């Protein structure tokens, strides 16, 4: 047999990882990305003649419970029907024994790629659209636990989607949770890897980094604050990179990323409300402004009225002076 060249070895490595799709309706087109548990492939659905994404477990997984975790991820996605969460079409086990699930193929950019070309207000509005599906998931009792710019996709039509729910778990619902969410949580395990440190440094809350078993939805609020910081400064959270950031926005980030979960926003919706106030020049809950800043904000918010009032007062002053002459 001929010796194996480097390129043949590389091809064989890819071959080893190729999912065995015999007996399924899918046909591999190309590799898309790697995740913590497996690889995402672009495949063709040969029945509906459309392209979808297939997340397939690695041939050899680092732990034995990953197949269950992948299916758990698929079930979580299936139960979260929201325009900001990627829809799942199918799930199961391939001929080679690997678990998989099939989801919508999102053609677009990651947040990190997309945000560079946007202005400040557009970036804030983008974050509001990330907070909406997150709030939706929290109300239903799910925590993402791995929010970071790489896990946010902006689709071809400008839709914002939260991806990679591989570390998601069922947590305690925030107090604003609706009554039907307890039903949607039936039959799901609380946590597949309780006590393990999972997540991405820089975007992971302190309690998650400590593998605290009491991690709740506020760990995602911390990540959301870190993402806002990244969107505003272009860098991972760091006090030094805040130069030039408006103080109310810095205060919103700081509140969201407070070390004590009790000092963070109680929900993604509450954080969104503060951002909306900033956009309309209303006072932001996270920031106590000075008299001077307040005057500046009122001027910015009611510019026309302030100019008219100033013009009126000026004219009246002139009139009084003129009439006394």
């Amino acid at each position, binding site marked *: 047999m001929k010796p194996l060249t480097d390129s043949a*070895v590389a091809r064989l490595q890819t071959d080893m*990882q190729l999912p065995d799709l015999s007996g399924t309706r899918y046909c591999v087109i190309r590799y898309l990305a790697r995740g913590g548990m497996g690889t995402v492939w672009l495949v063709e659905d040969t029945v509906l003649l459309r392209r979808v994404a297939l997340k397939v477990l690695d041939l050899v997984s680092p732990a034995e419970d990953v197949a269950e975790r992948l299916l758990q991820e698929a079930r979580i996605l299936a139960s979260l029907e929201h325009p900001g969460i990627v829809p799942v079409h199918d799930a199961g086990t391939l001929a080679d024994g690997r678990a998989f699930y099939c989801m919508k193929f999102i053609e677009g950019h990651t947040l990190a790629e997309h945000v560079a070309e946007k202005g400040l207000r557009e970036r804030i509005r983008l974050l509001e659209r990330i907070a909406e599906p997150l709030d939706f998931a929290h109300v239903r009792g799910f925590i993402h636990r791995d929010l970071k710019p790489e896990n946010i996709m902006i689709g071809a039509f400008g839709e914002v989607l939260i991806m990679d729910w591989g570390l998601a778990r069922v947590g305690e619902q925030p107090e604003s949770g609706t009554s039907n969410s307890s039903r949607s949580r039936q039959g799901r395990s609380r946590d597949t890897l309780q006590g393990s440190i999972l997540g991405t440094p820089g975007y992971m809350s302190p309690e998650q980094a400590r593998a605290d078993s009491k991690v709740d939805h506020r760990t995602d609020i911390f990540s959301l604050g870190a993402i806002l910081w990244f969107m505003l400064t272009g860098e991972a959270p760091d006090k030094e990179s805040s130069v030039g950031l408006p103080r109310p926005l810095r205060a919103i980030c700081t509140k969201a990323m407070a070390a004590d979960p009790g000092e963070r926003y109680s929900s993604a919706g509450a954080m969104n409300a503060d951002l909306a106030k900033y956009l309309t020049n209303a006072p932001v809950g996270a920031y106590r402004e000075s008299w001077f800043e307040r005057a500046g904000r009122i001027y910015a918010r009611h510019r026309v009225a302030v100019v008219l009032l100033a013009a009126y007062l000026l004219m009246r002053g002139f009139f009084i002076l003129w009439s006394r002459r």
Partner: protein
Amino acid sequence: MTRYSVVSAAQSDDPATRTRAIEAISAAYWKPLYKYVRMKWNSTPEDAADFTQEFFARLLEKEFIDSYDSSKGRLRTFLRTCADRFFMNQQRDATRQKRAAGYAHLPIDVADAERELATISASETPEDNFDKEWVRSLFALGLQGMRKNCESAGKMVHFHLFERYDLENSDPKPSYADLAKEFGLPPTDVTNYLAFARREFRRCVLDQLREMTASEEEFRREARVLLGVDS
């Protein structure tokens, strides 16, 4: 579940079992080790070949392989560390005793290894090359096993298709339609035959690796390196 491992067989009290196991280990590791010695210590091809023979002969001594504890590290790292230590000892002991006597000589193809060495980039470290060669070696053994299985099952067409499509460096790569014409098969058979061959190759390589590792945990860690998932 009982798990056969050449590592535990190499630590057996039965000399015949031990010899068979060491032969299996040397089949997978001789080339990575030979190239490592050549790169790391600038040994001549003759000295590197002698060293490789002596190293595996020494491995037959029970106390040597017995010092390997799979819970403390990978066999791959153990062998490379042992080779370093063995080389240092040899350097110190100029009048070393040749230990290869009594051990069936390894079928070392120095010319082949030297041809491959000539293509290695100057920036590559001996350690990185050792790991890369280990992957190449396991794939080569997997291919041998796959060929044997295909021969006995009368499925050599599957093997030749795989060889043509996945092993040859042809540019451009032949399409399935080209292969169907070349092998006189319907295109759907090409898809199915290649899927079978890839499954078989995957099975043979992983079986080989499972034998070369002492525990399921080590197997999982090494398999992820082999697949290029982890480094």
